[in-house]
């Protein structure tokens, strides 16, 4: 007995996504009319050659990156919220992004130790893969540890505190590494932590896009096990789910998604926590078969909007992406916490 209204939501989201995507191509330091954007995308020439260049070389990879990043972080957050049965779980809050940062820091900063700061750039795609693997491993390692702790600790608050502490520990290690680095490297690392969708070249896109799409497909295939896990592990098992196997694949896909995006765009805060909640309220369901496509598109939309805002259209200034996502995300997370508190004020 599906809700008839729900069927209209997904197409609406898709249309919104396309619209925001085009808007992200049109707006920026230089304003390009939407019609010109569409002409360019269809293979034609824009009225000015510079516009064609701006769209194809700068804004298109950036907009694609934003869509992929929003989708990846949102889906990764959704998977973790279900797995931990915790509404505040997400790539950032549980220290997964910190783990990925550590992986990136290790690769970027040890590249200096080898003596060649341009080491990774020289490696090209191989270097990109090194980054993805390092970030994903860092993410998976943190997620694995949090999960082991989570099985012993049932208390949500304790888990969040542990995630926070984990974040501190990893940033401490990063700080130590920074102590041994040149100021130039430190600066590039810091800029990476601000987060940006603009740093991905077409070459890197050939790595980013397939990895993220693969992660999203795995997540979609895991919809059914994720639905069973809504009931908790014992029930999921009684329904015939091999919990260990499902958990392994969920962690893998969540950390590849979050790790890859962190490697290319920096640790982007809040999107991963906020998007699943928005979709749950919008669609009024926890069914992952609806939520994963919804989160994928909603993630793209929100990330593109965040990118639009950070560009401050019409100006030359670019705000740090993380500042923008935090400003969007904080009210959403606050709302979640307050709403849950009012629900839980009379515990059963």
């Amino acid at each position, binding site marked *: *007995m599906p809700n008839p209204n729900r069927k209209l939501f997904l197409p609406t989201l898709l249309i919104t996504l396309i619209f925001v995507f085009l808007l992200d191509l049109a707006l920026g330091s230089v304003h390009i009319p939407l019609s010109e954007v569409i002409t360019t995308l269809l293979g034609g020439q824009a009225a000015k050659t510079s516009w064609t260049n701006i769209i194809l070389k700068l804004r298109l990879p950036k907009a694609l990156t934003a869509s992929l990043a929003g989708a990846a972080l949102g889906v990764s957050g959704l998977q973790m919220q279900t797995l931990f*049965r915790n509404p505040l779980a997400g790539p950032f809050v549980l220290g997964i992004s910190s783990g990925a940062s550590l992986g990136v820091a290790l690769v970027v900063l040890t590249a200096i130790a080898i003596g060649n700061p341009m080491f990774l750039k020289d490696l090209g795609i191989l270097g990109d893969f090194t980054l993805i693997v390092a970030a994903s491993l860092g993410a998976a390692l943190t997620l694995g540890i949090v999960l082991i702790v989570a099985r012993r600790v049932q208390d949500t608050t304790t888990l969040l505190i542990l995630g926070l502490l984990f974040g501190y520990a990893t940033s401490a290690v990063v700080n130590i590494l920074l102590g041994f680095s040149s100021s130039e490297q430190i600066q590039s690392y810091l800029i990476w932590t601000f987060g940006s969708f603009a740093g991905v070249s077409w070459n890197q896109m050939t790595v980013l896009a397939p990895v993220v799409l693969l992660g999203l497909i795995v997540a979609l*295939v895991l*919809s*059914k096990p994720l*639905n*069973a896990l*809504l*009931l*908790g592990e*014992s*029930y999921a*098992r*009684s*329904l*015939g*789910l*091999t919990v260990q196997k499902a958990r392994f694949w969920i962690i893998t896909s969540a950390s590849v998604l979050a790790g890859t995006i962190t490697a290319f765009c920096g640790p982007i805060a809040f999107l991963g926590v906020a998007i699943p909640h928005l979709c*749950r309220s919008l669609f*009024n*369901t*926890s*069914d992952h*078969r609806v939520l994963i496509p919804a989160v994928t598109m909603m993630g793209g939309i929100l990330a593109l909007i965040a990118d639009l805002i950070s560009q401050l259209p019409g100006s030359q200034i670019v705000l740090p992406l993380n500042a923008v996502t935090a400003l969007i995300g904080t009210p959403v997370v606050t709302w979640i916490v307050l709403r849950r508190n009012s*629900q839980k004020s009379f515990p*059963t």
Partner: protein
Amino acid sequence: MSDAILTTHNLAIGYKTSPKTFHNIASNISVSLQPGELVCLLGPNGVGKSTLLRTLSGMLPPLKGEVRLLGDDVYKLPPQELAKRLSLVLTEQVDVGMLSAYTLVTLGRYPHTDWWGKLTKQDQAIATWAIEAVGAAHLAQRNLSELSDGERQKIMIARALAQSSIAMLLDEPTAFLDLPRRVEIMQLLRQLVRDTKGAILLSTHDLNLALRLADQVWLLASNGNLYVGAPEDLVLSGAFADTFRSEGVEFNISSGEFSLQRVDRGKIHLVGQGLEAIWTTRALQRIGFHVTQHTTSSNIFVEVISEPSSVFWRTTNGKAVFIYHSLYELVKSLDVLIKS
């Protein structure tokens, strides 16, 4: 018996306390679940009822022996095959976020559906039947978080029913419910087990209901003994009294209830009839009097006077006569009288 749904033979249950040591809870368990029977598992707190249920459902390996479900070892059955034969309802309250009752019930079809969980016409029909069978059809479109504990428990049972398994194990399904809801759920389960010819095993602390509704009782004692039989058999054999023996509480073998052992405050002579007299007796017993209807050596005399418009109590103690308009007043003054 060959038609048993689930059997155990010389089963020992317990759990690992360290890689080499085991905590043995009970051994030599040889029991069976028969089609169409509701079995209640009773026992004091912490005696290992949940461990037994977990072992029977294949979630925990047995220390010795095996559990056979339709002839196959439950611990070795592939998870999906096991789920088609056995369903569970647990004590834990699940917070599933935003799911309608109907969607939750369809999750019971999990072991029967494809990788995407697509529901066939048959799956939908079974889910609808399950939700109707527990009398919750009107809740189908409601969000689970809006339901009361009793309603939610019904939905969880419907979900287990939708699994189309021949055996259903329930761990204290009525723990969070008020009394009318408990009776309702237990009656429902009894009806279901008759209709489906499956087998239902549930653990409970509700002795009274178990005694009235169970076809069989498994009574797990603190010493690891498992007494099995019709509830009345176990009352007569003294198994109940032995298992639940503790200080200050005794199992009354004639009423099948637990009664408190109280200080003896002597005898009271009660005169009266009808419901008022019955509850006056209860009130007097509550504070430790032995109530008799005969003139005895008791020097306290209580008379219940029922008039069409009012009820009052008259006590005579020696020469003093008092009138009370509620049992509360009566009990309170008798309490003071005895202490002085």
